């Protein structure tokens, strides 16, 4: 099969079949990554523009490496918010398009920005995070990590703990996991849950042990201080008292439960130091999968023309 699309915006508009296809492709890419020579020619002669309006270390690195492994030319134009005021996103897109770019990787503080850009450019647009909306790349690598560890999604019980209001990857994961047949339980301070969250097909708890009960997978979110005003949460100290993943809480989960975090992690806040250092916490697997998933995303889009043919 193939996935006929020009752009990747999020998991919300992918079907379960689409997601499985991306994950299978990512497994192939992982095979390539494990070779001595990691270079493959799939994006030879194509150019990839990294257009980030927000700072990011890991997303940028993984997209850049993925593009280079696939032999694309990569241009990094990490913009500041200052540039955004001078030139509209559409104008920037036109500029990049006219110069003949094939892929634009966009990270932007406004929800829906990737869709807006995609409407006015020929190039394929990959959403690397838009406001508080979605981050499909990060989510797909989480899903790949879960698949590798558990072998399936149907019937899995996944607990998600933390901040859902400001976490785009958490939302992408909810779309993905529910579509793939996992049973999703969420817990977090009520002020950091989404409005009408049950309608996303998840079970909402205020107590983390209820969400974690018999879980196969525990996903945590980043607790971002910079985006969180004190109206939603008093302090991280109080947060960790109620929602930190530690060995005591893990007793409620299945013995082989895995613990994941999108990084960067704050030791002792989202997850206790002891759990981070234990084999149950597989954040290194997540990082290892991040490049493979992005390679798969590039490959799939290039199969359908890859922006400018």
């Amino acid at each position: 099969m193939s996935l006929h699309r020009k752009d990747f915006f999020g998991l919300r508009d992918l079907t379960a079949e689409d997601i499985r296809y991306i994950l299978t492709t990512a497994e192939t890419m992982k095979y390539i990554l494990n070779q001595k020579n990691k270079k493959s020619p799939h994006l030879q002669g194509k150019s990839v523009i990294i257009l980030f309006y927000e700072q990011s270390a890991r997303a940028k690195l993984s997209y850049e490496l993925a593009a280079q492994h696939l032999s694309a030319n990569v241009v990094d134009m990490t913009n500041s918010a200052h540039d955004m005021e001078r030139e509209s996103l559409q104008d920037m897109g036109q500029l990049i398009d006219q110069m003949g770019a094939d892929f634009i990787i966009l990270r932007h503080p406004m929800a829906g920005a990737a869709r807006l850009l995609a409407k006015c450019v020929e190039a394929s647009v990959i959403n690397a995070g838009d406001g508080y909306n979605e981050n499909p790349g990060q989510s797909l690598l989480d899903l790949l990590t879960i698949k590798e560890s558990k072998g399936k999604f149907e019937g899995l019980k996944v607990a998600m703990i933390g901040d859902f209001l400001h976490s785009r990857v958490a939302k992408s994961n909810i779309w993905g996991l529910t579509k793939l047949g996992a049973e999703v339980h969420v817990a977090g301070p009520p002020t950091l849950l989404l409005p009408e969250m049950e309608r996303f097909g998840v079970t909402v708890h205020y107590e983390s042990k209820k969400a974690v009960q018999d879980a196969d997978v525990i996903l945590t979110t980043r607790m971002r201080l910079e985006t969180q005003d004190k109206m939603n949460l008093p302090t991280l100290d109080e947060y960790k008292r109620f929602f930190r993943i530690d060995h005591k809480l893990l007793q409620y989960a299945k013995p082989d439960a895995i613990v994941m975090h999108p990084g960067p992690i704050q030791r002792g806040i989202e997850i206790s130091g002891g759990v981070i250092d234990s084999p149950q916490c597989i954040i290194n697997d997540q990082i290892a999968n991040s490049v493979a998933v992005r390679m798969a995303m590039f490959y799939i889009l290039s199969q359908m023309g890859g922006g400018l043919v």
Partner: protein
Amino acid sequence: MKDLLLKNCRLCSGEAIPKTLCDIRIQNGKITEIKTGLQPKGETILDVAGKYVLAGLIDMHCNICEPGFENIEDIETSAASAAKGGFTSITCEPNTKPVIDNKTVVEYIISKAKAQDSVNIFPYGSMSMGCEGRDLAEIGEMYQAGIVGISDGDEIIDSAAFLRNVMRYTKMFDLPVMTHCEDRTLSGKGVMNEGYTAACLGLAGMPREAEELHVARNILLAETTGARLHIATISTRGAIRMVRDAKKRGIAVTCETCPHYFALTEEDVEDYNTYVKVDPPLRTHDDVQAILEGIADGTIDVIASGHSPTPQNEKNKEFGNAAYGISAWETAFAISYTYLVDTGVISLERLSEMMSKKPAEILKLTQKGVIAVGNDADLIVIETTQPYKVEPKEFASKAKFSPFAGFQLKGRVCHTIVGGAIQI
């Protein structure tokens, strides 16, 4: 040339509605005779061939943007756009530049509107100097200069103490007090209705309580001060319930909604459609249902256009950065007809009341709002059987966009007659 004979009219407003087609004689801008088989006396004759003739529409909530924002809309394009939409009288919100907070600006707008010799423009005065919600504007002088109401100009009055004083002060002129209801501490950074759709799109939400808190507050203040309160653009079930209860208790409160609040829902924001970015935001199906109930049982008095134009480039942005606003004059009546009359929610007579008679009563435009001998000859002729397609690029307004682009609507305005002069 203010003399006109309208032949074969199907009347739909007035005290006693004739069952048969009749003719309307207009002399010197006034209706002088309504009868069948009137003989021409040398005046212009317009045969409407059995089409419905309604009293001209009166818009209680719109923005003409002049003075100060002529790049967005001006008095000339406002008049042309309103006339195309069947509005023979429009008001204007005072948040112009300079703000309508003194008699000079009122006189400027009235004289400029008169010079147009087109649609009537009745300004609202600002409650406060500079629309800042702090110091009382010269309401009395503006009243003498011709304002028909006072308004916050969609700038929210945070201070209950100030609004209470406005209501007390205004009592000596018996002017209606128009309020945009929104508690800014609750709406915060929201850009659409709070709820599942906003969560799906990753957009910050404005909860319904933001509107409802101010509706409750303003009703309480109207009750204690005895002022005439008019709640602009009501959009939630809770707010409508409070107005219904207040009316039952005899409080002098009226309210209005706009066509987009019952023809669209928050789900129309899907795909980040900035053309539906309005304030208050589009709500849910349940709220739309409540609005329809409120329209049917008379809780909602008036349908206004809510015309608040904005430059096209301010809409071609990320949803969060895009401007609020809608170009509404040229679709308001047809949307209302299609979604309210064609669907059987209310009769055409009742729609005419909501868009003409009731606004005239609230604004005390005693010669308008009803087709009757002696009244101003502000009339519209509408076509109700043939659907037509909404083409925003043909709008007379400078804001040539609409969330209703491409919609097939019934209730096209064929003719707009203001003071006996045919505008379209």
